[in-house]
């Protein structure tokens, strides 16, 4: 398979891993954060920690757009779904995420009309096919998915489809990285930069990380070789005392980003003054809502929602795991009260969640004891 096999070539990977081991300073302990949940999963999925030397520690960042949503927002979306005329649509990722009264799948089992869609365009088509119903699309994602939501809203407006709305839970990546760097309990040496977000926003938005914070950042692809090459590039920078933004994922990420996507986003969305992130509190200018000109398609304006702030169960340590302060296995609930089948927080069910990655791929390898599921 093109664009996959070359980046999984065992010989090249082995050579790169050797190069990493040669370059890593044995007297130094490196803490590299991969921001993006997709990278966390790739690292576990390909067993990359097994090929890295023990003094390179990979810290998982908050780049999981489902994980950072407070439970109250899930409840809000599901409250809208309880309207009999509403068809609740969302990506497959969302279906098992727990709200206080259950996940979308559990609501579906109880008779609520909940459907998986693979793109917001599918949700719009559903609205056109069901003129007597109202289709609400629960939009999630960083800047990666926001453009397709924006384009869908533009299409809805242009075609005059009125039985369609979007509940926007899009968040932006830069404030999340800023929150990590501002956090007093963090000590990150360098960043593996998000891959797919960068196809939209480009590499410029990361320049302050290198310039102001003095941390190297390499925007990385998702195949094993991409990640290893990115780690190599970071080690080179760290070894030479440099800090700059580099793009390892050049076959996909343009330095300037995707202007058409950014234009569509700017037309449809504006930044919320503040938005609550699970485990990180309120962060200003960190999330997107629909502009006034799209009010008619804004689910938040069309439906009255409780908007209740729901705090995580006391024992859950989702926030600390999201920030990389704790490893998933260090959370008291990991593998006991919180498993993929009975998740307490989204990190255990989202395909981008680090708890899910750890649980599914890693934790039984060394026979580390966790309670039976």
């Amino acid at each position, binding site marked *: 398979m093109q664009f996959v096999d070359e980046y999984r070539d065992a010989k090249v990977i082995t050579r790169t891993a050797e190069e990493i081991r040669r370059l890593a300073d044995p007297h130094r302990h490196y803490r590299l954060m991969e921001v993006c949940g997709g990278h966390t999963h790739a690292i576990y999925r390909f067993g990359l920690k097994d090929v890295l030397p023990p003094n390179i520690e990979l810290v998982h960042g908050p780049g999981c757009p489902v994980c950072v949503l407070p439970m109250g927002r899930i409840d809000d979306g599901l409250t809208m779904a309880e309207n009999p005329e509403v068809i609740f649509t969302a990506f497959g990722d969302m279906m098992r995420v727990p709200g206080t009264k259950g996940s979308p799948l559990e609501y579906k089992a109880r008779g609520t009309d909940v459907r998986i869609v693979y793109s917001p365009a599918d949700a719009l088509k559903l609205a056109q096919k069901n003129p007597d119903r109202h289709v609400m699309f629960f939009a999630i994602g960083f800047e990666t998915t926001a453009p397709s939501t924006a384009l869908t809203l533009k299409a809805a407006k242009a075609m005059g489809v009125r039985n369609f709305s979007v509940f926007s839970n899009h968040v932006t990546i830069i404030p999340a990285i800023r929150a990590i760097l501002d956090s007093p309990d963090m000590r990150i040496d360098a960043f593996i930069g998000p891959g797919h977000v960068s196809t939209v926003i480009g590499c410029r938005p990361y320049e302050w990380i290198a310039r102001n914070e003095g941390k190297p950042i390499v925007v990385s692809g998702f195949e*094993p070789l991409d990640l290893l090459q990115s780690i190599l590039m970071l080690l080179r920078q760290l070894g030479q005392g440099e800090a700059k933004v580099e793009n390892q994922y050049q076959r996909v990420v343009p330095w300037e980003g995707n202007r058409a996507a950014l234009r569509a986003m700017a037309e449809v969305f504006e930044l919320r003054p503040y938005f609550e992130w699970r485990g990180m509190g309120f962060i200003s200018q960190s999330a997107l809502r629909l502009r006034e000109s799209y009010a008619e398609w804004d689910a938040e304006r069309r439906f009255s929602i409780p908007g209740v702030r729901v705090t995580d169960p006391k024992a859950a340590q989702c926030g600390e795991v999201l920030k990389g302060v704790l490893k998933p296995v260090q959370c008291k609930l990991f593998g006991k009260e919180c498993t993929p089948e009975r998740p307490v927080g989204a990190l255990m069910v989202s395909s981008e969640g680090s708890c899910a990655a750890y649980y599914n791929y890693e934790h039984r390898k060394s026979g580390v004891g966790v309670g039976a599921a």
Partner: protein
Amino acid sequence: MAHGAGGKASRRLIEGLLVPILSAGTPGPLGDAAHLQLNGTRLAITTDSFVVKPLRFPGGSIGELAINGTVNDLAVSGARAEALVATYVLEAGLSTAVLETEARAMAAAAQRAGVAIVGGDTKVVEHGKADQMYISTSGIGRPIAGVTVDPSSVRPGDKVLISGPIGDHGVTILLARGELELDAEVCSDTRSVLPLVEVLARAAGPGIRWMRDPTRGGVATALNELARDCGLAVYLREEDIPIRDAVRGACELLGLDPLHIANEGQFLAVIAPELADTGLEALRQTPGGQGARLLGEIRAEPAATLIAATGFGGSRVVDMLVGDPLPRIC
């Protein structure tokens, strides 16, 4: 719905609720079929039900699944199917043409599989209650000489074999639903695996420890069950897992793990090391068995775990399916 997907929830429903009640306190090990002694004659019996949407798909239909599924359950338990009975639950309003097509498909599949359909039952339920039709088949057969399937006989060093490429059926169904605008040249692998099982039995019978057909939940679920039942570790080598390019491509695009995808025409076997190569060669020389591969082996540690090695020094735990495989998005 998760309880029907074949993974952990299914297991809990079956083992946690149904088995204790139904077996009146004397449950045997849960295999693909039950082997009994009736007045000195040894028999194997099994049942299965088939719920699939759409009813027809590239490579087959519900009727063929209904025959092959039960024949295969008997085959991997070490028995040759002799007779089946079938139950139809039909939705009111189903066209007779559709029913006739499926009946013919079943008759043809039964003939190919060398099994007789000797009885059945039909029920009609209200419109909206049966997704057009549900079929259930029960099968009875005779043990294949020289084959005993018993997870407790599995030992470290035993080899794991698969009869052919994985993922064809599940991906075909997903694409046939038409919800994804994805085209691929895939078709279901539904077929009776009995001929191949018999070839393996002749070539390596005394070395066969365990067999299973990896249907819902895929290879990962079947091998997790093995790991749990024998208490040992099952090691797979990812680069040795046979998979067609089109299936692999579809899985990559959708973010699905082929190890969790249903198969309807393959079987897994654990064979003692001294007979594994002989068994493999015999399969590969048989029409329909050329895709057979040795996938991995049994080790002592870590207990009751399925692990896949990546081919460049890394490894990952492969868990049982939880719920339905949901395509990843971002």
